[in-house]
């Protein structure tokens, strides 16, 4: 289980996360909602121990082990995968190279390039295209596929539906729901409430660096008026 407790993160002297506490259990899809600039991506970066922001208080534990102080590759080696905002592919690598770089074709355990191609047939058709030759939807599929290649136990997805066509968002929702059923924990950072509700089990809402609301997805689906004050720009 991923447990985040009283985390305070700073960019320079600016406090961005102010005592964030939340958790993601195995096989659970947890949505983290909030408007722009509320600290969602900062939390993802804090979990991955990226150079910025600086976490000065609190703890981030994975199956009881403290992650703070590790290098980002140390976090990834503990089976925590990141699907970054904006996909962030490698422009010079082809679709196949993105996947086989992480796990050669000779390895048949866990996620393989062929399994990723089965999940995203569109990528199979584009296997020799470079990262910068793909459409937004294809890039997102590849970003998800690349993250899966490390055989993660939890995936952090930072606004995966951003900039995608509605049909592609629907496809992505199906994939996230299927991944959740395989026992994978997913922390889904979203601005789109409806997209998040389509797949998640639990919802956290973040405002100005704090978790201000927590509810089960079932509760929110019945009545989400209480959430709207945090998500709608007044």
């Amino acid at each position, binding site marked *: 289980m991923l447990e985040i407790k009283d985390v305070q993160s700073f960019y320079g002297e600016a406090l961005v996360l102010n005592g964030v506490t939340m958790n993601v259990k195995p096989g659970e899809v947890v949505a983290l909602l909030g408007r722009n600039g509320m600290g969602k991506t900062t939390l993802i970066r804090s979990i991955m121990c990226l150079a910025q922001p600086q976490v000065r208080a609190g703890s981030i534990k994975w199956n009881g082990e403290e992650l703070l102080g590790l290098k*980002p*590759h140390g*976090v*990834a080696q503990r089976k925590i995968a990141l699907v970054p905002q904006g996909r962030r592919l*490698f422009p010079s*690598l082809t679709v196949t190279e993105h996947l086989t*770089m992480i*796990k050669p074709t000779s390895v048949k355990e866990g996620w393989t390039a062929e399994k990723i191609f089965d999940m995203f047939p569109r990528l199979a058709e584009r296997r020799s295209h470079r990262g910068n030759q793909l459409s937004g939807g294809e890039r997102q599929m590849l970003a998800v596929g690349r993250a899966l290649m490390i055989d993660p136990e939890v995936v952090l997805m930072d606004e995966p539906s951003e900039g995608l066509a509605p049909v592609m968002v629907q496809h992505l929702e199906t994939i996230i729901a299927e991944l959740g059923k395989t026992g994978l924990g997913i922390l889904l950072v979203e601005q789109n409430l409806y997209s998040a509700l389509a797949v998640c089990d639990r919802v956290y809402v973040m405002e100005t660096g704090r978790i201000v609301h927590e509810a089960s997805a079932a509760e929110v689906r019945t009545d989400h008026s209480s959430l709207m004050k945090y998500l709608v720009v007044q």
Partner: protein
Amino acid sequence: MLVDSFAKNRPAIIAIAIVLLVFGIVPMFGSNYQISIATEILIFALLAMSIDVLAGFAGRTSLGHGAIFGASTYVVVYWTSVVGGSPIVAVALGILAATLVAAVFGMLASRVSGVYFLLLTLALGMIVWGVALRWTSVSGGENGLRGVGRPEWLNDPTVFFYICLGIVLTLSAVIWRLVQSPFGLTLRGIRDSESRMSSLGYGCATHMFIAFTTTGFFAGVAGALYALFNNFVSPSTVQLSQSVEGLLMAILGGIGTLFGAFIGAAAIILLENFVSQYTARWPMVLGFMFIATMIFAPEGVLGAIRRIFRVGKKS
């Protein structure tokens, strides 16, 4: 399976076949002087390829590979002339020494990138040059060291040329496999974005250390061959200009193309050897050629050829 493997390695197979064809016939028609020029081109092409792996695939421009190359040359000449040891052992020790120097360089330089990597490798290369210049009891100082010549069975320039051709082509194939392997892909990933690679679980510093040490091995082989070829070593063999020349060869041929190193090495060595017969200002000619390449073919000669072929295919 065989067809797949051929398709994947087709660029390398074609390039190696062309090099074999072009260089293979030199001894049939060329004089001993021309054979020695061709040998020198092969040796420096290997140095340029080792630099290209870092500059073209990992995005790290090294100015220290000349010193690694020269360290191997020093060890080979020292072992054969001062210690009086066997040339085979000397070559092995030279390559080992170069790999160790590269490992030390790599340990320090693998944590930095961009201009810092450039400056750090430059500084490390300068240290090697300083040692070669000042440690006169071992290196011979400015006078350098003269070797005892190649063993008898290697004395014939044609035999030595074919041995160099065999070694360089074999190592070219090895380097090609290296850059096409998952390890090579991670180097390209690091070049594109270190933080992204880190988020995927890669310790970028470790990968860069391995890459630096491995390329140091290839530069070391080139340096050992150069010792047998030139039979003399002095601080000029380890100085900055050696690294710069190797880098220019890689850039001129096409950075990130690997086999462009043969074109770059040929262009520069032929200019040095033939144009210098007509004018003492041959470096100026080299400079103009370099400027023209950067303006008309910034991706290098092989890069430009590839672009033309791609355009031809599309149309």
